[in-house]
């Protein structure tokens, strides 16, 4: 049994739990975009950052992958954490301004589109990869993948060709947090 604290409240957990698991179990909400309980932690969005004091120093870490340890002190909403989250939301908002989740977060953190905003961009997809990972891990097919790199990164079928692997189960549609998959779905599925 591991004893540690979240927001000054002493809690207990077991070997192998992450900080995010423990916090949510105790009713403390930590925002996240790319985390889903049915998938392995991915650590892409960095939005679930928390401040962890392990006795020697404090660090900002991502809670979805950070395992709980004896005696650590976790703070989920310090100014330092909020500052990191605000910057992440800022960049995400410029990257995918139409995602309802990100707009919601922007409202919470008081973020508006910045000077980094690309012109003419209206993506709803913020590339959390939930659909790709669900297709691989949950369904067991590989009908979806990331295509291209950097600014041109996108969700697509392998080789940009309608995927014959797709079994039309709709798991990607269900797991997509922004509804972007609804528009992509027919391109990805083989006719």
């Amino acid at each position: 049994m591991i004893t540690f604290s979240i927001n000054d409240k002493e809690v207990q957990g077991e070997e192998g739990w992450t900080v995010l698991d423990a916090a949510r179990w105790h009713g403390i909400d930590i925002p996240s975009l790319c985390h889903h309980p049915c998938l392995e932690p991915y650590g892409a969005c960095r939005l679930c950052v928390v401040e962890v004091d392990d006795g020697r120093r404090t660090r900002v870490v991502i809670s979805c992958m950070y395992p709980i340890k004896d005696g650590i002190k976790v703070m989920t909403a310090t100014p330092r954490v909020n500052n990191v989250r605000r910057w992440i939301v800022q960049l995400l908002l410029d990257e995918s301004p139409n995602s309802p989740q990100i707009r919601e977060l922007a409202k919470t953190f008081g973020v508006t589109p910045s000077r980094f905003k690309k012109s003419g961009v209206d993506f709803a997809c913020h590339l959390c990869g939930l659909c790709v990972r669900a297709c691989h891990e949950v369904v067991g097919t590989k009908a979806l993948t990331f295509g291209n790199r950097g600014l041109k990164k996108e969700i697509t079928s392998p080789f940009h060709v309608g995927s014959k692997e797709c079994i039309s189960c709709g798991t990607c549609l269900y797991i997509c947090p922004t509804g972007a998959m609804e528009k992509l779905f027919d391109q990805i599925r083989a006719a």
Partner: protein
Amino acid sequence: MKTEGQIGVFLCECGGKISSRVDLPLVAELLKEEPRAHLAILPYPCLAPGLAAMKSAIQAKKLDRLLIGGCSSRVMKKRFPEALASMGIERHQIDFINLKDHVAAVHEASPQELAHKAAALVAGGLASLNLLEQYEPVSLPFDGPVLILGGGVSGFAAARELARHGMESILFVKSLSPERVLDELHQTFPGCRLFCGDVGEILREVFAHPLVKVIPEQPIEYIIGGVGDYRVGLKQGDGNVTEVGGVAIITALDREFSPPEIGYIGGGDRVWTMQDLEDRLVEGHVQPGRVVFWVNSPQHGQAAQQFAAVAAWRDSLLMARENPQVKPTVLYPANITLPLTGADLVEARAHGVSLQSYAPELHPVVQSGYLSFVSPGDHLEHEVEWDTLIIPGVPSDPAAKAKELLRWLPIYPENGGGVLKKSHIKLWPDQLPDESLFFTGSAGGICDLNEVLQQGKKAARGVLHLRQKALENRLVSPVVVHVDPDLCEGCGLCTEICPCGGIEHVKPGSGAVPRETDNHLCSGGGTCAATCPYEAIKVLNNTAQQLEARVKAVVGRMQEHEILSFICGWGGLSSAEQAAVKGLTYPSGIYLIPVNCLGSIDPSILSLAFLNGVKGILLAGCTPTHSCHYHYGVDHCWYRVNAMKKLLSLAGLERRRIAVGYVEVNEPDSFVRMAESHLDALEKLPPLPRDDRTMAKLWAIHATMHRPRVRWVLGTSLRRPTEKVFPGSQINAVEADETMLDVLKEEYTVSRILKALSDQPLSPPDLARVLEEPVRTLTPILTDMSKEGRIVTKGWEKSYPIYALGKA
């Protein structure tokens, strides 16, 4: 084998997403009377702390069945079984009720009202889990040769791969020597024989190998059995049938090319088909001059044209190499892509082979010595000079050999055309065991010789994989479908309508023997179980009894104005859940029960729901024919609903109480509209009357749905996997429908008579009064029933017999 279960219920708060909309403590309170050993409300059962809490509950209460009321079973179906495997909990021991997407997120009603709905759905899950049965998987032997049927060239590649790995095979071929096979290769692969040098090597190795038994093709009388024990009956010249056994079957079928129609061109000896050319090339005649290959016949599709163009390119390269005096040109339509590499083009140029495209919308014109075509580049008519004009062959329909095999294997012509496909059922990969249906060759799609050989090799690898598993004692057949040999009368209806090959064939002429199943092929679609006239088929952990119990439990907790909805696990479920994700809402008076496929719903389930007092039923499934994952599952459901409608109107109830809707995987808006529309339509109707007269009628409807004669007639009218005709466009649709109606009417009356006689013995006039039918319609039925011994004459009253139940 049934085990008494300890069921644990775990309700998820989902971080407030469920608990804020559904009063979960009230749900727990409402479920107090249900058979359950444990109930807990957890913040997040799916996260590590939640799983730990579940594990300790499983250990403390010795739970062996779990019901999780949380989110979609589709995303969670791996998470829980994987995490709880150490506690001995398997996939089928967990039932998911989607409280988030079927209740919490889609309705605007109060948390207390939604708690009642949630409790009803959970109670249904409990009733179903309570009837869970456990079957031990069957270990399969895998000892013997592999049968390679069909005579396709890929069979040789498969046989070589098997022989090299020390596995025996029996190869059925058209010609009995490597040379003969090579000589005939151009019938299926024009242009390839002279190019693919290693084919000859494969053939020689196969013919000489001691592990390969090459025997001449014989007409196939039957193929029976399943993985590990296939038996093929071969018809001999003298009319006798000999049987050959094998552990697996590889079907190697190639599509033949027939000579194109060139009579209209004329030109006598100067215009050849590709076959003519190949024959001459074998003899070594390569005449000098300008040779033009004209790739034509757009009606056979671009794949065939591409194939023809490549074949033409190969032959022209060969001719140019043999005799530099030959100047070949390949004229191909511009709308196909030539699968040639840069190196190929360089080689073509080096040998003076010209590749020329023409605009496909303008048909080239043949003249004496010239062929004029329009170039897609400059839209100008050009002319190419020829001394010999060659027209490539066209793919022909599946050969007689193929048709013989299709009768026994789950391989079907795609869209009624010449291309054959394996049963196209698309499932979650974890729903199917190892691949055991091997189909190779160009009959499945026109392709190159090299690719076909690869397919053969791959099929052999699949067989070797099965053998490896068998050696490690891991080759087990999951029990998906089970036929009760005591109930089965061997009518064979299930084999006929089974699209996946899960129900084995029996030897022709062997009479009514109970069917067996090949669970390696079974897809669990369940239309066989819903069709069986004697209700002898069970789909494991998805039985009609389980669904019956679920429907009873759910309907028992519904209010009289609410309706039941069955949604299929693909289009219906996906769209319903996506409606929740999208934030759409619909009235809470519709209770969703997901099933694998609508085709698995036994007709008696529909009548049972009405008997239990449901006001109406909506069935939402995929669009028939092209998106049903089980061939015609949803189509089969339509026939059953149709029968239900007829029975409702016979009983004087409204037909529109039951309706089928079609929705694709990505259509949440349509699903919501469908649900609202059906609810609206039913709002104007009163709830189902609960008086004795109506109840007796509903009882009779339910009994009618169980009657073997009704189920038989229903089963024979279902669409078969090979059929393409829609119910509405069949011949004599009205007459067929009326025949069905007559049978239903008669059996419905029989059921009503039995119901009336179960209360008290009655004479025909009294019966007529009770049933409100004229005596003259009852008399013949009563006479028949009495002759069959289903009712007996207890006494006489005013020269009328008094009938009663029981045997004489």
